[in-house]
């Protein structure tokens, strides 16, 4: 260990390399974190553009803007880009930036692999997005790419889609290994596991989930590849396969995947709420155990996505109760956040606003999830806009608000300047109102029977769809404001102190703002 410190002390003054090579060849966790965050935001805008096409088409009943075939590609690409391009890389970016700073490590444990895992992502998404311009169009079978829609009936570009999934899977797995190695090996002396900030804890658990399920995703797309190109029959009934098998394998990946997208947000919010409540987090240990419990349970509930394929009653009951059981550790978390705020000295800066909205709106999404978990009722809700409302309530105010909260919370540390608080509050309120306008009416649409992924709808759904589209346009446009706020903050403003938030705690606030290119070359001592 001492050798590391000596090496780094000698190179202490080395700043970043100049020009483009700084970004291409960098092994610095802060540079790579920044690139992840910029990449994920650009994917957020791209996936958002696809969503705007969807909402524009659904503004009025009837077909007016796009062909149904293109509409299908938009719903599919919106889901894929948001899940794999926006949410997951954003959390990897936050992990890269913050985990070494939070545990007192000089960098990630595997810096070269870190560089590689980032640069694979633009390649994967270049391939994925290029399918839109190929003959036959891009993927049009929904982000869940159920066989045989994606095998027998998929467009010729499906093979490119599979290749892109493989590459982004490799990238995620490498990112996860890096997080695990960093957290297990590079903690500062005295930083025991149960002293780690919750963001680090939730990311460690997320990394284990990634390692467990991304290979299963790679396996299922490999089976698709073989069915399409090499004449196997994994999912083809005529050759002895079974399309339902696809759904089982996919959701074995898919359900832990939804926790991969939310656990780091749980962690970030668990940093932010205590900071702006000026109190310690209520129930730290129970938060850690609850996160672990959610992660373990996530492997036992996959079939609740497929109640309608014909699962025996015993199976339906098992998956229904197992799903409802997840509400218990999740409830522990929500109560802990509320208890942290209870009788705290609260202030409502932008990170706190996003964090509080996270707690409230994610809970709404959790409740609609409980409704969907009730197997007999699910037959009514399945594949309707109620499902769309549910997962957007957990992903937009859940994952995305968690990312916004983190961005505002740590922007002073990244840039060295305070962001514009009033613009950030405007961003929050417009996002909050836009998001609720967009997604709340979808609950009613779904309960009334409007099917998802269809470019047209019955006339009685017209008003709610128009409201929903207006909300979506508002939410989408507001994100340009976020871009402006971040650019403005990066360019200058009020200089940020090392610890710009009065109640914030953690090692990241012991280094100056902006964080120097190299930090913790000498490990800090945690008592």
């Amino acid at each position: 260990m001492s050798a590391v410190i000596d090496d780094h002390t000698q190179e202490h003054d080395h700043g970043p390399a100049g020009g483009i090579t700084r970004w291409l060849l960098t092994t610095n966790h802060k540079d790579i974190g920044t690139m992840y965050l910029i990449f994920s935001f650009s994917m957020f805008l791209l996936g958002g553009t696809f969503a705007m096409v969807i909402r524009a088409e659904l503004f009025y009943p009837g077909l007016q803007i796009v062909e149904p075939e293109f509409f299908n590609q938009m719903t599919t690409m919106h889901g894929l880009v948001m899940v794999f391009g926006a949410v997951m890389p954003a959390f990897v970016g936050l992990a890269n930036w913050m985990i070494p700073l939070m545990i007192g490590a000089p960098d990630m444990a595997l810096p070269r692999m870190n560089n590689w895992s980032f640069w694979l992502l633009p390649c994967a998404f270049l391939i994925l997005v290029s399918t839109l311009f190929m003959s036959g169009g891009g993927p049009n079978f929904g982000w869940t790419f159920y066989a045989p829609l994606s095998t027998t009936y998929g467009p010729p570009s499906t093979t490119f889609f599979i290749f892109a999934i493989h590459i982004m899977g490799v990238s995620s797995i490498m990112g996860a290994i890096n997080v695990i190695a960093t957290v297990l090996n590079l903690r500062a002396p005295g930083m025991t596991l149960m002293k780690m900030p919750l963001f680090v804890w939730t990311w460690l658990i997320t990394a284990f989930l990634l390692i467990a399920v991304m290979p299963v995703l790679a396996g299922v797309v490999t089976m698709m590849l073989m069915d399409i190109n090499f004449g196997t029959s994994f999912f083809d009934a005529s050759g002895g396969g079974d399309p339902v098998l696809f759904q089982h394998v996919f959701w074995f990946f898919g359900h832990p995947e939804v926790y991969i997208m939310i656990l780091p947000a749980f962690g970030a919010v668990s940093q932010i709420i205590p900071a702006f409540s000026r109190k310690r987090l209520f129930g730290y240990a129970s938060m850690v155990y609850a996160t672990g419990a959610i992660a373990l349970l996530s492997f036992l509930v996959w079939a609740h996505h497929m109640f309608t394929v014909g699962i025996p009653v015993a199976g339906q009951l098992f998956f229904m109760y197992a799903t409802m059981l997840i509400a218990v550790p999740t409830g522990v978390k929500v109560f802990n956040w509320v208890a942290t705020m209870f009788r705290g000295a609260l202030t409502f800066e932008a990170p706190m606003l996003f964090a509080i909205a996270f707690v409230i709106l994610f809970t709404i999404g959790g409740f609609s999830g409980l409704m969907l978990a009730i197997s007999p009722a699910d037959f009514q809700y399945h594949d309707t806009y109620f499902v769309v409302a549910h997962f957007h309530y957990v992903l937009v105010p859940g994952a995305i608000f968690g990312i916004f909260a983190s961005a505002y919370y740590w922007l002073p540390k990244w840039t060295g300047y305070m962001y514009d608080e009033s613009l950030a509050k405007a961003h929050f309120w417009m996002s909050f109102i836009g998001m609720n306008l967009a997604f709340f009416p979808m609950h009613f649409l779904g309960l009334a029977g409007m099917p998802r992924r269809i470019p047209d709808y019955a006339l009685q759904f017209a008003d709610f769809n128009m409201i929903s589209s207006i909300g979506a346009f508002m939410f989408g446009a507001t994100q340009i404001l976020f871009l402006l706020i971040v650019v403005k903050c990066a360019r200058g403003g009020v200089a940020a102190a090392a610890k710009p938030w009065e109640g914030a705690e953690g090692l990241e606030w012991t280094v100056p703002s902006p964080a120097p290119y190299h930090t913790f070359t000498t490990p800090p001592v945690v008592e």
Partner: protein
Amino acid sequence: MTSNKRSTGRVVTWCMTGVVGMFAFGFALVPLYDVFCDITGINGKTGGRYQAGVTDGEADSRLITVQFIAQNGPEMPWVFRPMTRNIKVHPGEAITVNYYAENPTDQAMVAQAVPSLSPSEGTLYFHKTECFCFTQQALAAGETVEMPLVFIVDKALPEHLRKLTLSYTLYDQGKLQQAAADTTVAASTNGLAVGG
């Protein structure tokens, strides 16, 4: 530093073992799923050839209705129908019924019938000692065939099951390979083939 490097190497090794293991597990789910469905019968796929004695003891006095359905897979041109649509059987007795198939096209074709029993709860109690679905069917142009199915409804069939419906879907196997070849050709002419 060396100890740190070594332990990082160890973590990476463990993680990679996990990754490889889970990739293999994804593929292991395929046979596991088949075995699970075989044991429980929940996907309605009636099993292979029944080996036990055909006439082990007296037939049950219950009368069970067995319905037969036939359907064609996508773009399957054959005429395919059960010659008996409905039959009442006593559990325990061996019954023979026939399906009729005709290849109306002007070329030889190969087909495979895939069974499905409803309700799936009855799958484990429906035994076939002889079935055209055990093998592929090859028919020359214009040829017709009567295909036998010999089955026994198990005496252990739960009391509340009074009616079983057996459906066969006939898939074109010759066409399947042809379609795969066509896709590859079409894809490569579009400049879209990778790894195919």
